[in-house]
C-alpha cells in the first residue's frame, strides 16, 4: 500500500489533506513542521510528500532542499502547497496554491504517481 506524508502547521488543513489522500488509497502520516517530517522520512519510506511552504522550525522549501541533497530521499515525489505562487526552480515539484481544492489535489497526485493497493 502506498504511503504518504502530509506536513502542515495548520491542524484543520492537515486533517483534511490527510483524509483526502486516505480516500485515494494512501496510508497517511502527519507532521506539523519540516524537522519532524525529516525525522519521519529517514525512518520510513514514503511514496509521496505533500508539504506546506511556510512552516515554523523548518520550512517546506528547506525540507525539499535537504531531501534533494540526501541520495535516499532525493527521488521521493514531492508536492508543495503555498498561499501564493512561488517559483521554486524545480519543474519536478508541482506547486498548488492554497486554499487547496480537493479535486485539484486529486488531479495533481494522479498525474504525479499512481497509489499501490
Amino acid at each position, binding site marked *: 500500500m502506498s504511503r504518504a506524508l502530509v506536513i502542515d502547521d*495548520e491542524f*484543520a*488543513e492537515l*486533517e*483534511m*489533506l490527510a*483524509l*483526502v489522500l*486516505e*480516500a485515494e488509497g494512501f496510508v497517511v502520516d502527519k507532521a506539523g513542521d519540516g524537522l519532524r517530517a525529516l525525522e519521519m522520512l529517514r525512518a520510513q519510506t514514503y511514496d509521496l510528500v505533500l508539504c506546506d511552504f511556510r512552516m515554523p522550525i523548518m520550512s517546506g522549501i528547506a525540507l525539499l532542499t535537504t531531501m534533494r541533497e540526501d541520495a535516499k530521499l532525493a527521488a521521493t515525489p514531492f508536492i508543495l502547497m503555498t498561499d501564493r505562487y512561488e517559483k521554486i526552480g524545480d519543474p519536478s515539484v508541482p506547486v498548488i496554491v492554497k*486554499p*487547496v*481544492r*480537493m*479535486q485539484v489535489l486529486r488531479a495533481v497526485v494522479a498525474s504525479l504517481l499512481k497509489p499501490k493497493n
Partner: protein
Amino acid sequence: MTNPTDQDALDGRLLTHVPGLDVLLDGGLVHGGVYLLMGYPGTGKTTLSNQVCFSHVERGGRAVYVTLLAETHARMLRNLEAFDFFRPEAIGSSLIYLGAYMVLQEKGLGGLLQMLRQVIVDERPTLLVIDGISSAQALGASDVALKEFVAELQVMADMSGCTTLLAATMTSEQASAPEHSIVDGLIELTLKRQSQRTFREIEVLKFRGANHFLGCHHLEIARSGVIIRPRTELLLARRPHAPSATEMRRAPTGVPNLDTLLGGGFLTGSSTMLLGFAGSGKTMLSLHFLDAGARAGEAGLHFGFYESPDRLLEAADAVRLPLRKHVESGLVDLVWQPALKYELDALGDALLANVARRNVKRVVIDGLDGLRQAAVYPERVIRFITALVNELRSLDVTLIFTEETLKLFGPEVELRIPGMSALVENIILLEYLDVGSELRRLLSVVKQRASGYDTSVRELCITDNGITLAEDAHSARDILLGLEKLAAGGAVNPGSSRGGVRGRSR
C-alpha cells in the same frame, strides 16, 4: 422581481433559487462560503434550508443535510412533503440526510468535525447544511470551541468548495460575537406580531463579497416554499430606468369634457389622484379611463381592493361601458386583492408582474387605502408608492389612484397619506353638494404638473351612459351661487371649501 440568472452561477455564486433570496443577496451565496442562518423555531429555517438543498440537487448539485437535533429525519421529511419543492427521489442519492446528535453528544465538536471531514471527502457535497448548531452550546460547548469549530468548517469549505449553511436556534442578540465575526454571512429570520397580525421577516445582517439589501424584508411560507419579498422601494431603486420620453403625449380619460380641462387628457407616464367621498364617481371615472385606453389598443389594469371584478363589470354594464368586452379580449385585467390578505411587497410584485407580462399602459389602483392597510409599517407606504410611481413612469404607464376623502361635506380635504399630494402629478377633486333636496357633484382639476389646465369647476353627472361633465362652468357656478344665496338667507350652515357655502354639515 427578476431573479439572477444561471450566468451568475458561473461567477462564483451559488444560486439558492429561493424566490427573492438571490436578489436579497445580490447574486446568491458565494461558493465555499460559511453562513449562519438564525431564528427561533417557527421562523422558517428548516424549510428554507431544505428548499435550498432540493433546489440545488435539482440543478445537478450534491447536498448533505446534517441534523444535530433530537428530531428524527422521518419526522422532518414528513413535514416537508406538503411543499412543491419536495422531491423524494433525490433523497439518498444526490441529497443525503445524516443525524449527528449522538456524535456531538458523545464526542463533542471534535468528533463532529471528524465526521464532517469524512462526509465531505466521501460524499463530495457542493452544499452542506448543519441544522441545530445551537445544540452544541446546549451540550456545553464554549464560545471559543464554537469559534474554532466554525474556523475549521471554513477550511473544509475552502478546500472542498462546499457552501455551508449553519442553522441555529438563536437570535442575532444571542449569538456570540466570535460566530458573528468568523462566518461569511449572517441571516436572521424573525416572527413578529403587530396588533393581531403575525408576519415573518428576513434580514441579512452580514454578507461578505456582495452588495446585499439591508434591513428587514417580508418572508412568507406558501405551498411552493419560502418566498422572500425584498422591499419594493429598494428593489426598484437598483433597477436601471429608461430615460423619460421627450415627446409629451396624452392619455385621454374617456370623458370628453374632462380631457378638455386637462388639455387633451393625462400626460402619459403621469400619476393622478382621484379624490372624493364614496359614490362621488371615482371608480366610474377610472373605468372610463381604462375603456378609453382599450379602445386605443392599450392594455389596462384595474388593481382594486373593494369591488370584485363581477361588481365592476355590472357597474360598467349599467352605464353601457364596454368593459366586459375589453376584459374578455384580454385588453383590460381586473385584479381584486381582498384587504389585508396580502402584504405590501407582494402587492407590488403582483402589480408590476402584470404590467410587464401584458405590456400594460394604463393602471388604476382602487384605492390607496388598500395599500395603506396592507402595510405592516405605515411609514413605509409613501416610500413604496413613490417607488411604484417612479417605476411606472419609467415604463410610460399612466396611473390613477383613487382615494376616499373622510368627509362627505365640508371645507377641508384630508389626505391620509402624508406626501401624496406632492408625489402625484395630477389631482382631481370630486365633491358632493347638498342643494336643497338634491345631491349634486362637482369636479375640479386641482393640479396638473408640467402642463396647463382649465381651473374651472364643472358639474359631474353619472347617467345611464356613464360619467358626463358639463361643457362649461355655468351650471357649477349657478349651484354655488344658489347655495351662497341660501346661506345668506340663513337656510344652510356654512362649511364650504370655496369661501361660500358648498355643502352642509350633518
